[in-house]
């Protein structure tokens, strides 16, 4: 439902700006927030955070893994899982075509990268969602890979860390996309019973079915500054209540003051914060 909003947004500029990062030769980029023109390399060296105003640009999965975990420690899993148009769904475009385009654009089967990594040499089962693949929407593959990520943590008895960025459920997979909410959340019940920590890092945007399942269920919920986090998206709510929403509504800082996240963490501090809390509850010393 709330997927409405990222679709609307996609029309505007947020995604475009982020996507420009992937165009070779595109050396300069404008900050959405402060309008400063930034040299791309400076931005990258600063964890894709605007050096001037602190705006957090969206980040592609591999950059994020490199930023947070031990160098070259990430080993992907389940890379071969791919989506299929089992409902023969078609709107202005068939799902089959949408998949083909998204795969061509991202060089990836679906909207999540998952596998094992280490943090200060401690094993972590990790998944990172990729908003540039169909708005990070959750279909069968995303649900399956997140579930396997949780189950890997269970099997290896190591913490699970998930970076979310998703407009919600993937409509083109109909009811099956909805059921991924139950599947992923259910896996977290097993993980919780086993006493293994789960950290959710909520990145911009995390809405709809993703926010209402594994994204919000962390033992620790950390949000990136300014990230949109919501069940219903702003546009849906505005249509429902027929009034404009207040500034900052559903942003990370709003979620913090409403008790939903433990901390809003600057991306440049995230590795340190993850290291600290995992050491506290699980004993992963930063040796």
């Amino acid at each position: 439902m709330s997927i409405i909003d990222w679709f609307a947004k996609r029309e505007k500029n947020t995604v475009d700006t982020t996507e420009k990062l992937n165009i070779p030769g595109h050396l300069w980029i404008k900050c959405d927030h402060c309008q400063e023109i930034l040299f791309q390399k400076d931005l990258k060296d600063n964890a894709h955070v605007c050096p001037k105003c602190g705006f957090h640009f969206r980040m592609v999965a591999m950059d994020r893994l490199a930023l947070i975990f031990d160098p070259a420690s990430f080993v992907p899993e389940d890379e071969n899982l791919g989506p299929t148009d089992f409902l023969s769904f078609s709107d202005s475009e068939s799902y089959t075509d949408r998949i083909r385009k998204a795969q061509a654009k991202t060089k990836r089967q679906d909207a999540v990268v998952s596998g094992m990594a280490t943090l200060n040499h401690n094993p972590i089962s990790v998944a990172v969602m990729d908003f540039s693949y169909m708005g990070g929407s959750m279909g069968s593959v995303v649900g399956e890979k997140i579930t396997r990520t949780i189950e890997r943590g269970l099997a290896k008895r190591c913490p699970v860390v998930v970076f979310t960025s998703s407009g919600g459920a993937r409509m083109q997979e109909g009811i099956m996309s909805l059921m991924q909410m139950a599947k992923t959340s259910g896996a977290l019940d097993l993980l919780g019973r086993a006493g293994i920590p789960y950290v959710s890092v909520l990145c911009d945007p995390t809405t709809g079915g993703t926010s209402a399942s594994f994204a919000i269920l962390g033992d620790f919920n950390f949000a990136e500054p300014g990230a949109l986090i919501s069940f219903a998206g702003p546009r849906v709510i505005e249509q429902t209540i027929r009034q404009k929403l207040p500034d900052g509504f559903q942003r990370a800082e709003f979620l913090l003051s409403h008790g939903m996240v433990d901390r809003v963490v600057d991306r440049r501090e995230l590795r340190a914060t993850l290291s600290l809390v995992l050491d506290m509850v699980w004993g992963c010393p930063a040796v």
Partner: protein
Amino acid sequence: MKLLPFEKPLGELYEKIEQLKTLSRESDIDLSSEIKKIEKRAEAVREDIYQNLTPSQVLQIARHPNRPDSLSFFRLISEDFIELHGDRAFGDDPAIVGGLGRIDGRRVMWIGHQKGHDTKENIRRNFGMPNPEGYRKALRLMQMANKFGLPIVTLIDTPGAYPGIEAEERGQAEAIARNLREMMGFGVPIVTFVIGEGGSGGALGIGVANRVYMLENAVYSVISPEGCASILFRDAKQADIAAKNLKITAKDIVGLGVADGIIPEPLGGAHHDWSSVSLAIKAQILRDLAEMSTQTPETLRQSRYAKFRAMGVFTS
């Protein structure tokens, strides 16, 4: 009884029959063969309409204002129903109801979304769209059931969780997500029926069950066809096509392995005969509870997880 748009031809025939009957009575002319002819035609039209319903027509039946609601089902199916209120933290959401009842001697905890049958009641019930405290009330009652070893039966009937400012402030996402996780962990049998509209995460928030059934004219969908159409087709008027493509009917949902079976409704829809539908639901509950009554909490948990764990279609 409100006639749905696609029932109009049928309505016209029924009206004609009534007119002829009146005429026959008032003028003392025998029109019985004429009447019988039209009745036969009506019957044929009726079968034709209801046996070839399009998904969006099914959706209209699922949303029919006279369709039986959760509280009525609780009372029709179980004896001694007693409603229990409140989440013990913030409020008592009228859009989700719950309480204890006895079905042929078997004690259960009922949970359901609650719509109204008229505007006033619908406003009170927020058209069946819960706020976070509704999901939290449901959770409290399910936890009570789990504590005392009572099976849980949930009835799904909502356009979705309420998309409002305060609902977001109080953690709509959190409330639903927590229910998904906690329901997976209960050691008692859980049976769910989608009795009308199964709308999105707001529906699933009370739907993580060992057995899931669709009423014949119920729908279950990740997004309302209207919402889907306005996003994907950029045109809300394409809702009919979206309803078709989303595969939301009982047959589709069972075909995809998301529901386990279909509870038949009388021709025309459950609103024509609440009690026959109640009996069918009751029979299904009793069959399932009998079967699951010998299973351990761990088995119930594991089989519930296995059920949802298997959902998803992908290549590898």
